[in-house]
């Protein structure tokens, strides 16, 4: 960390589970300080019992997402100076997920919905078959490539209004994954993906608010993928799909 640039930050941190309260900590403010730095400082210097989750600290693992001043963010790549609201920080667990303790959520529903959306690769060949050439220039491969860098941070899921309103909605990340699979020519069950995302709580539940696109920390566009799934499923319903 760099030099201290003001004396302290007033940081409100959620303590407890569904029932709980904000606890305010005075944290030294430093240059280039991230929100994860702040939470780590509190845990190491002020409140050892504070529960939070992180792993890589460089924006790859997706485990440190929290609600910062009302918006879901990846805390390891969010500079405090970018998000301060009147010199204050309020840090909560992600919305739309069950809370475990303090800043930690249970991500089980998030990943179960990936399964519901059939977000797993189904091989169309075995290791004994020859390698299938895949053109990196095909429109399908380009569409898949645009969505595959998801880090599973659940920021889009926490930002989504439809997830908040409809517990059955599988959410932007699961549908983004499904979109990459229907565009992957190596996948052996692309119609199965379309059937899975056509069910209640699938792509047609999306209201196109584009909060996922607005908040995705790695710049993916789940809204475009969900729109693509809507088009493909509608065409399939009218007999235009494969």
């Amino acid at each position, binding site marked *: 960390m760099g030099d201290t640039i003001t004396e302290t930050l007033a940081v*409100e941190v959620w303590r407890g589970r569904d029932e709980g309260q904000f606890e305010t900590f005075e944290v030294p403010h430093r240059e280039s300080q991230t929100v994860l730095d702040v939470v780590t400082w509190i845990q190491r210097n002020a409140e050892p019992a504070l529960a939070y989750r992180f792993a890589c600290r460089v924006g790859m693992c997706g485990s440190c997402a929290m*609600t*910062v*001043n*009302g*918006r*879901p963010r990846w805390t390891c790549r969010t500079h405090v100076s970018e998000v301060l*609201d*009147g010199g*204050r*920080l*309020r840090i909560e667990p992600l*919305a739309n997920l069950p809370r475990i303790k303090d800043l930690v959520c249970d991500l089980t529903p998030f990943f179960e919905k990936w399964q519901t959306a059939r977000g797993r690769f189904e091989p169309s060949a075995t290791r004994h078959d020859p390698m299938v050439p895949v053109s990196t220039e095909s429109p399908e491969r380009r569409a898949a490539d645009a969505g595959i860098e998801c880090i599973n941070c659940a920021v889009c899921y*926490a*930002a989504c*209004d439809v997830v908040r309103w409809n517990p059955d909605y599988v959410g932007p990340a699961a549908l983004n994954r499904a979109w990459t699979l229907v565009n992957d020519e190596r996948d052996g069950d692309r119609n199965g993906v379309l059937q899975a995302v056509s069910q209640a709580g699938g792509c047609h539940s999306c*209201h*196109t*608010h*584009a*909060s996922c*696109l*607005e*908040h995705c920390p790695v710049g993916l*566009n789940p*809204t*475009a993928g969900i*729109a693509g799934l*809507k*088009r493909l499923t509608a065409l399939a319903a009218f007999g235009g799909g494969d």
Partner: protein
Amino acid sequence: MIGDGIVRASRNHAGFWAALAHRLSGLALICFIPLHFLALGLAIEGEAKLDTMLAWSDNPLVKISEWGLVVLLALHLGLGLRVLALEWLPWRDPRKGLIAIGAGGAVVVGLVFALNLAG
């Protein structure tokens, strides 16, 4: 409260405001439809009643309401076309441009209607 303005901080972006404007304008138009049917019903009942209604509609306050109605209709149409474009056309990230076209179109229609009223 920190992070909370008029709406939740995570909703404070153009896509959400466009969706809200689309829905609220739709609800406002639904409120107008009974009045519209009432006017049509009066036309069936006879010329005199319809003329009374049309005379009432020359009231400046009604004219202003008509202007509001036209703007709401244009807004609802523009933002509805935006949703259709987002969902049916291949796109990457023109959402704010589409919102600007939808809302801007409503403003233009409103101005044309207001100028027509003034003229």
